[in-house]
């Protein structure tokens, strides 16, 4: 008799202060999804409002999915297995409503200008965090996902995180750099 498979959802945990800025997460992501190195098409993008203040920016799978709810063409849906937001290519008109619905402005236009890019968690085994873990930087790590609302709070704009890091790293002087 076969047992029903237990699906454990994962989250890409992010420890921003540890981002080395190597952008090999972008390389890993786009080699998987595009078959080539294409930083601007990456589902995870590393921002750098000031050198040393690098911020990986990727979907956190909010509990209430504001992007999915806002989509006027019903192009976005939630993958039941992983919880990742799926973008239906024919339906997405690249209108950008989801971007503005996201508190962190995380969805972004694919450089081909035809669709929105949102992290698909690689089906439950994200390449970006695998790479980061392999490199020993441990900024992005794959962890089991629980039920807390805290995940939602990681939908933050990169500049806001960078400003926090600036003060954390540089003290008062950090307030001047961004």
């Amino acid at each position: 008799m076969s047992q029903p498979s237990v699906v454990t959802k994962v989250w890409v945990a992010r420890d921003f202060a540890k981002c080395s800025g190597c952008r090999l997460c972008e390389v890993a992501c786009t080699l998987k999804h595009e078959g080539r190195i294409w930083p601007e098409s990456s589902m995870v993008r590393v921002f750098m409002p000031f050198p040393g203040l690098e911020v990986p920016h990727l979907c956190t799978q909010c509990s209430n999915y504001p992007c999915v709810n806002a989509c006027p063409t019903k192009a976005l849906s939630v993958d039941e297995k992983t919880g990742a937001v799926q973008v239906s290519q024919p339906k997405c008109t690249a209108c950008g409503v989801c971007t503005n619905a996201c508190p962190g402005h995380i969805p972004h236009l694919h450089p081909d200008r035809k669709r929105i890019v949102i992290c698909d968690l690689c089906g439950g085994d994200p390449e970006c965090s695998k790479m980061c873990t392999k490199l020993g930087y441990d900024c992005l790590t794959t962890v089991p996902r629980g039920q807390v609302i805290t995940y939602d709070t990681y939908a933050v704009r990169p500049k806001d995180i960078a400003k926090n890091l600036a003060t954390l790293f540089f003290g008062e002087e950090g307030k001047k750099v961004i």
Partner: protein
Amino acid sequence: MANGYTGKFLEVNLSKGQVSDTTFSENILKQCVGGRGLAAKILWDRLGKKWQRIDPLGPKNLLLALTGPVTGYLVGTRICVSGKSPSSNGIVGSTTSGEFPMELKCSGYDGVIVSGRAEKPVYLFITDNKAEIRDASKLWGLGGKDTIKAVNNEITSELGKTDRCFGEWKEPGMIYIGPAGEKMVRSAAVMQKLSHAAGYGGYGAVMGSKKLKAIVAKGTQPLPEIADPTGMQQLLTKFIESSIANDSMRRWGTGAGGFATGAGTSSEPQKNWQEEYHHALSFSVVNFETKTWVKRYWSDCGCAMSCMKLATVRDGPLSGAITDNPDYELQAYCGTNLGIYEPEGNVYVSSVVDDLGLCGINSVNTMGFAAELYQRGILTKDDFGFEPKWGDPIAMGKLAEIIARRKKIGKILAEGTYRAAIELGKVKKMDLTKYVVQVKGIGVGGHSPRSGLGFITPIGYPCSTQGGDHTSPATPFPGGEIGSTVGDSLVFCTASLGWRYDPALLWPFYKAVTGWDLNDQAWFDQIGRRIIMIQRAALLLGGPDIAWDPAKDDDNPARFYEPLPSGPRKGSSVDKAKFIEMRAKYYADMGWDQKGIPKSEELKRLGLRDVDRVLQKALRQA
């Protein structure tokens, strides 16, 4: 279209305010590759016949910023900056790492060739197959950090207003100059990020002479198609794993050297190279790590090595300093060579030098020279407006400032160590060249052959086509200086590879990207040798202010012949007779005649008949 290349180079004429695309044939790309190799080719083809008359700081000089075929694919993304050097009057290939090369390639360009001179300060903005020359009057005069902030804000807010405004715009990549470049300080660097200087060569001054504050790129395209994506990916994994296995470089970068080079090998500059030994535990890496590091693993685009550390000084009189934690070179120059043995002082001086867009090696070589003249009473407080005492970080910061802004004695020091020594020597009516620690206008890196324990050999600087450049030293054959042209021309970060490449990995990687076969033999017999020959020819032609005489100038600084005054290698110095012997052998191995001039038959063998003709006319007849 050649794989790995976008196929386009951006041609910018600042005098005419025009930008256009240019291309190079597949044969040229195979023969000259990119970066330093292609720079030598472009410079020779366009300026070779009139080389001696080209003023490096005049509108006829070119400023080149070139990637190579593997840039962006291989770990550690760099760009090579070149032109006629205002330091050496030759050609230097000076690389700097960061995100700019990636953004440039993703914009659809392999490189930028800038000629002419703008009327007013400008910057160049490149995005997706187009470029425009823009007003930079608001940026002119700004230091590094303020330039980065202003450009990031301007570009991201502008892109945010375009019709493609869906989501956040990632910051552009940029190379720029600080006030030192604007003032055409001959050692000024072309900067990237905080401290990532293309320093050797003084190309910041060339950008300044063209009134070009920055080259900014934001590209949204993928990297170009490559020949064998699967093969590239498999090899990339091996390169990444090899970086990960290099514990020392990952843990400390080169920053353990600030203590170890002095204490272990007696070859670290102290007080303008008056000594080379120290055992200052205050300067050991554990103190940097616990006093100034705020990010332990810091990388540029594509780098799995993370030899950089982010640093700050949080309190005390030096607080507010922010920069890369000094690597070995900047520990040596902005630290011990100025008599500074504390991490905070070292980070402070580095941050001042970086923000001004000076070169942390070359400009600070000049600072050490000036401080020694002060120590000896040849220069006085009146010359400076303060007292540049060894070990005083605040005073050394002021010294950097007056050089970058050409104030007081800084007017003369801004001409670089060698030219300043000649100029001051005339005024003081004494020979000051015995205090200059440079070769052919380029201050030596933080390594010396004096103790016999360092990695630089006695011919390292004297026979290099890039003078005192420690990243391109001449070494006894097999190899010579040619090895350094590999990373500089394919354009990747040799530090990411632990300073030496594995030919069994690198050439297959090159083939996976380009589809073309290449190997060490072809490189060392032909391609790399051709690059060095062109560089040697340009260096010997020199001009217009200085032309080098190999008999006199293919030599070590006078100081390297003085016995070391302290440490376990006390009394050791470079043996002149042995050096002359090594030099003669190097000339022969390199295909140069007894005077150090490339031989006709060797130039002809390499297909450099035009170089031979110019040398024949200019040097062999003379």
